[in-house]
């Protein structure tokens, strides 16, 4: 424990400073530090090095961390998907049963599957509610109504835009016009966000051809998830890793495909869910 006959080793000094010693050893070490200028001075040096390292660590890394809004929204969407998915596999447990119980268990499972299958067929042979269909179909805008529109901007303009311009609100008159165009009557505010297809931060114009009622209440591919894509594309454009027209084209053509390409995270959305989301209104 002692570096010299009467002094603490660096390891013990650090253990005391980090609160990692306990009991008698901690009391002894603290008493020594109180009495010994040499060891206290060494403690000061170690703490100075720690402070330098922590400062370097935080100052270098913190400016790189993007806001958590987009990733939190994405996590919520994924958790909703995960919560809807079956979480356990019953087969191994079933196979561990005694032979006499196994037959009964197989019968129960067969009955369960039959009942479940019947319910599934009944459910899917009937149309979903209009509200659900409308929401699901609007994850991607109607290309005829909202092909996307841009304003003439350079990369420099886009990357030096003030935050207020990037998150510019859509005027209420234009919002109402968009709802009318999409045939949505008395929309619930919590269901939709009138969103720019090509975001202002990517040179998108405040034009009816660039606006659509984007569902906010879908568990996946909702407005919050699209925000994460917009942030990512903006970052790529400003870092010089993607040219602006390509970013605009990608988000205008199919933002979900663009999301999977540039954020590489489409695998969590189930195929059935995706099919429902991408289904066009008849």
């Amino acid at each position, binding site marked *: 424990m002692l570096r010299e006959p009467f002094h603490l080793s*660096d*390891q013990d000094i*650090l*253990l005391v400073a*980090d609160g*990692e010693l306990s009991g008698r050893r901690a009391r002894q070490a603290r008493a020594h530090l109180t009495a010994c200028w040499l060891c206290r001075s060494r403690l000061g*040096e*170690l703490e*100075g*090095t*720690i402070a*330098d*390292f*922590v*400062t*370097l*660590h*935080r*100052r*270098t*890394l*913190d*400016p*790189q*961390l*993007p806001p*958590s809004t987009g*990733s*939190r929204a*994405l*996590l*919520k969407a*994924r*958790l*909703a998907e*995960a*919560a809807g998915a079956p*979480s*356990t596999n019953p087969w191994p447990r079933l196979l561990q049963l005694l032979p006499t119980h196994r037959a009964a268990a197989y019968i129960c499972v067969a009955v369960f599957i039959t009942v479940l299958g019947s319910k599934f067929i009944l459910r899917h042979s009937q149309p979903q509610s209009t509200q659900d269909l409308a929401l699901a179909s609007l994850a991607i805008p109607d290309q005829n109504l909202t092909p996307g529109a841009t304003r003439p901007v350079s990369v420099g303009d886009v990357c030096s835009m003030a935050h207020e311009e990037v998150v510019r609100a859509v005027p209420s008159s234009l919002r109402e016009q968009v709802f009318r165009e999409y045939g949505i009557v008395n929309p619930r505010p919590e269901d939709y966000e009138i969103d720019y297809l090509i975001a202002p931060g990517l040179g998108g114009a405040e034009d009816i051809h660039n606006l659509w009622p984007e569902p906010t209440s879908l568990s996946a591919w909702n407005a919050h998830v699209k925000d994460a894509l917009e942030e*990512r594309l903006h970052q790529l454009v400003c870092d010089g890793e993607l040219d602006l027209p390509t970013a605009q084209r990608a988000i205008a053509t199919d933002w979900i495909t663009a999301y999977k390409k540039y*954020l*590489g*995270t489409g695998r*969590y959305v189930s195929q059935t869910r995706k099919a429902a989301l991408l289904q066009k209104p008849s």
Partner: protein
Amino acid sequence: MLIPRADSMHELAFPASTGTGASAKPAESECEVIHLFEQFRNPLLRYVISRGLSLHDGEEIIQEVFLALFRHLQLGKSRRNLRGWVFRVAHNLALKQYAANKKAQATFDSDEGLAQKQPAATLNPEEQAASSQRQERMQAVLRALPEQDRCCLYLRAEGLRYREIAATLGISLGAVSIALTRSLARMGRVVEG
């Protein structure tokens, strides 16, 4: 570079723990996971990108960590020291990402991230001038440290206790203590010199 010891990467990435409670309701687990995400997202992301992974890879790893945590809670597994648990999963996923990364040397050489970054833009020119020389020396020492020592430093900088660091890296408490002491002594000698 730490070498994975488990046979299966999945087992390595998602450590098992004994079930100690009843399965949580999905809504409760979701709230708890989001709360923990808000608490630990930045420390985890800092740790992962300080290991040299890209921000994009880091964000994806963080998502996987919290999805794994959600499943962990839903299965009613141990809630003891969830901070240590998420760091352990993040560390293992970072290793897994490294194994899958074809540009390993370019992207994971541990402190390239730190070494090549400029001082923060928030520093004024005087502060930058004063700190840059010291920082450069410190970065050089960091690059020369064994990977395990660097991991210990980064995890300690994120507030983990020695026991949590030991569990995250799969090493002994004594090894953590020695690694931290050795790293700080080296950095101290160079910075002061």
